[in-house]
């Protein structure tokens, strides 16, 4: 028996355990040498990435993985379940986290001077929380991980801009606590009527009590809680401040991942704890689609009004989260495929954009888009990545943004909801408005101002992850055919209970 055979059965849980242990070891590593934590985080994230990839392959080849924590049989013990949905979300988390960890080196050194070790420690714990939320099959365990990720996010945000960051973090904390409490309450209600905490078990038991008002109340609490967590308009008030004032690295991580995991959780609860039929029956999906449509439009409109690039991207996130939720709210295969696709696509695009914003801030101390004149000449690579990611946000064909938009619009037509098609298309126009201002500033300043600008590109550790994400934005714009056919469409069918993969 080799060492690997010994570890192999425990791979599912290692995605959570490795960042957890690594997070607590970081202070020791940092105490040895202050430069080491960066390598340490990269190493940890790389291992997690490999494991997450391996998990997904296992799921595709041999079906859902059930891991009994501590050997206790479900539904009594805590069970970790990795199916196609969370295997895929895990991989995205691991990948984005790895990219951000490479990027973090210079940025963290500049923006949180002297606190790099605690920053990395919290960074790893945030990943622990997100991973845990994703792969757990136990709803109370889910709550605990939710709070771990929230608390670490508060800490990361508070490390950002002096004053602003702390206030933003505090506001987020208050909203986050409300959200988490709602979710806790919902869990309590479900436990009261079913007597179990295991998601799969609960889904089997719940249909017997669907006529009970308690179940409906639980669903309402969950939806309200998650809506705050993902920043669904009009419960988004905490989000722009938090994204804007966090350190760039943390912004990229939080914007790229936290809301995605929130969305994942929402889907998990809607489709895998409750059943799609019930959720449709109580009109929750319809409410969700309309809220999402509102978010899409309002997020874009607010984004137009911003002059701080990070704040603009934050509002754009609100709008993009609307896209994802719209897809799921449509509850047809095409729409859900679009939603799933957009989880991945938006993670790539938004992460790339925040990384670019961070790189620009690192080099120039500028976040105001009206001061971006001449940047195209100063930082050609960074701004090209920005161009690609922004075009992708707009949904230009040949980029990932187009593929998900195509599915979402097609799903809306299939659901006979033409108004949402209009919403999606109008929102791409609004996206053009707020991104094109920046393009104009980056590349079309007054020529005489620009002539004397020297090339001064961000360091390589920042460039590499940005460029990789930029390339992926284009790569998956052309080559997501197989991915959709083999992963997303079967997954959408499974979520709707139409059969497909196990």
């Amino acid at each position, binding site marked *: 028996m080799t060492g690997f055979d010994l570890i192999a059965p425990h791979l599912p849980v290692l995605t959570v355990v490795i960042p957890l242990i690594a997070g607590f070891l970081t202070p020791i590593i940092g105490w040895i040498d202050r430069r080491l934590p960066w390598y340490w985080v990269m190493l940890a994230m790389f291992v997690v990435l490999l494991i997450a990839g391996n998990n997904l392959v296992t799921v595709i080849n041999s079906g859902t993985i059930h891991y009994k924590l501590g050997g206790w049989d479900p539904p009594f013990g805590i069970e970790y379940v990795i199916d196609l949905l969370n295997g895929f979300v895990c991989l995205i988390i691991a990948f984005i986290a790895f990219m951000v960890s490479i990027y973090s080196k210079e940025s963290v050194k500049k923006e949180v001077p002297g606190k790099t070790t605690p920053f990395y420690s919290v960074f790893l714990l945030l990943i622990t929380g997100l991973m845990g939320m994703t792969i757990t099959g136990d709803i109370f365990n889910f709550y605990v991980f939710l709070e771990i990720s929230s608390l670490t996010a508060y800490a990361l945000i508070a490390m950002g801009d002096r004053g602003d960051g702390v206030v933003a973090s505090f506001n987020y904390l208050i909203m986050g606590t409300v959200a988490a409490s709602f979710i806790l309450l919902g869990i309590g209600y479900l436990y009261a009527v079913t007597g179990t905490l295991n998601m799969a078990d609960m889904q089997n038991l719940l249909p017997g009590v669907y006529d009970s008002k308690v179940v409906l109340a639980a669903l309402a609490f969950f939806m309200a809680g998650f809506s705050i967590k993902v920043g669904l308009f009009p419960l988004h008030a905490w989000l722009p401040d938090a994204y804007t004032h966090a350190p760039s690295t943390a912004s990229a991580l939080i914007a790229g991942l936290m809301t995605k995991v929130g969305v994942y959780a929402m889907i998990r609860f809607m489709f895998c704890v409750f059943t799609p039929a019930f959720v449709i029956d109580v009109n929750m999906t319809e409410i969700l689609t309309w809220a999402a449509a509102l978010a899409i439009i309002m997020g874009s409109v607010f984004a137009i009004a911003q002059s701080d690039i990070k704040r603009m991207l934050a509002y754009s996130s609100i709008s993009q989260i609307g896209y994802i939720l719209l897809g799921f709210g449509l509850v047809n295969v095409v729409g859900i495929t679009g939603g799933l696709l957009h989880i991945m696509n938006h993670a790539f695009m938004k992460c790339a954009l925040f990384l670019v914003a961070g790189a620009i801030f690192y080099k120039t101390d500028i976040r105001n888009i009206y001061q971006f004149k001449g940047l195209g000449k100063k930082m050609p690579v960074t701004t090209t990545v920005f161009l690609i990611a922004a*075009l992708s946000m707009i949904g*230009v*064909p*040949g980029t990932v943004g187009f*593929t998900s938009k*195509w*599915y979402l*619009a*097609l799903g809306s*037509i*299939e659901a006979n909801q033409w108004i949402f*098609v209009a919403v999606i*298309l*109008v929102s*791409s*126009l609004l996206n*053009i408005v707020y991104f*094109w201002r920046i393009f*104009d500033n980056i*590349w*079309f*300043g*007054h*020529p005489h101002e620009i*002539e004397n600008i020297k090339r001064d590109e961000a360091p390589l550790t920042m460039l590499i992850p940005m460029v990789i994400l930029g390339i992926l934005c284009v790569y998956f*714009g*052309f*080559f*997501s*055919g*197989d991915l*959709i*056919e083999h992963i997303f*469409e079967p997954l959408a069918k499974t979520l709707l209970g139409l059969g497909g993969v196990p």
Partner: protein
Amino acid sequence: MMVTEINSITPLLAVLVSMIASVLILASGKYPNIREGWTFVAAFIKFGLVISMLPLILNGKVITYTVVEMLPNLPIAFKVDAFGILFAITSSFLWIFVTSYSIGYMRSLKEHAQTRYFFCFAIALSSAVGIAFSANLITLFLFYELLTISTYPLVAHNETPEAISSGRKYLTYLMIAGVSLLFSILVVYHYTGTTEFSFAGIAGMETIPQTTLIILFITFMIGCAKAAFMPLHAWLPAAMVAPTPVSALLHAVAVVKAGVFTALRVILYVFGVDLMQYSGIWLYMAYFVSITIILASIYALMQDNLKKRLAYSTVSQLSYIVLGAVLITPHGITGGMLHIPYHAFMKITLFMCAGALIVTAKKEKISEMNGIARQMPITMLAFTVGALGMIGMPPVGGYVTKWFLLLGAAELHSMILIAVLLVSAVLNAAYFFPVIYVAFFKKPDHELKYKEAPLTMLVPLVLTAIISIVIGIWPDAPGMFLDIVEIAVANVTGGV
């Protein structure tokens, strides 16, 4: 009619050549000679690749190539048919001339950001050829949007507030068009499950309810705002702030023709001749574009800026092409399709002359051009050739297409459409003859010495003027545009 399909990578290469060139242009930005060398090489290779496909097409074959399955059932694919190669030949052939002209123009005016200029130009050309070779609506949409984005920096090239605001206008119109086109494609895909062009129109289109069909047609036509139908034409005159070679190639050939090309693809290859006739849409569309033909000519009359006058003339001429297609008689379609290359050669000549005037005489307004022919006789002669072609006077090419259009209208016994064509010919004369008169016969305000534009500019414009005459004298020479068009028309009408 059976059409043999041949699988070949050539169409992809033809599209990619200028993409690769654009990268090389960017890489050698510091060395103007090498940079422009790449542009030239790419232009020749591109034209060579396009023309190498012509014999097969003339034999009635079709070349296909699927690049990648972007989404399930939505491949990025190329299909070269007679209509596609018609547009591809036009744009890639003229690129050679415009490259030479651009070099002369940009260097004479010592323009800034020339690397960006040539880079975007190469990408725009790729997109134009990509549009020509698209096998389905999605591929077409991909290049359509790419064309919009890559031409924006060219329109906003001057970076003055005026240029930027014109660029914004350009972008606003074309992006709204793009969104509308996307919507239409979604609807087509929803009802038929495919977006692939077919000679008889996409199968399943007839299942769409009549009201939806009409709305779909309207959104498609909004999507073709690049074709500058009134009232969606305002971007074109605004885009005239761009450097003249851009106006010449893009706003007389590549961009607007891409719009018209898309419109024709939609009318003939998505809806199909039968459906157009059956649903009665053709007649409304014919009247609609007739309004544009007349109104745009009147607008052109009112312009003093030469480039703007030419722009409005383009608006009017583009609608000829669509008019030809919606007549849905073989003659009408022939006239429409043939007008794509014919108008391109004549209009590019006119624009290059206007550019030469800007560079050499520093004059943009017609009212300032008294006696300018004494200074630039060759340029103004070329201009006269182009103008005569526009009006439809033999032997310059324009009369051929007008003849076919008139035949088409006559076959339908539509007095209104015949009247529209004749009135518009008169209006064309009304806005071109004053320019010629001013240039040749008015006394200059002060003594003018003979001074022509640099040779890199003069040679292309003379050549295009000569070609405009050649295609008028021998329109039916073997392998010329008429041959290609006849095959395309036979394809869509099902005739031989």
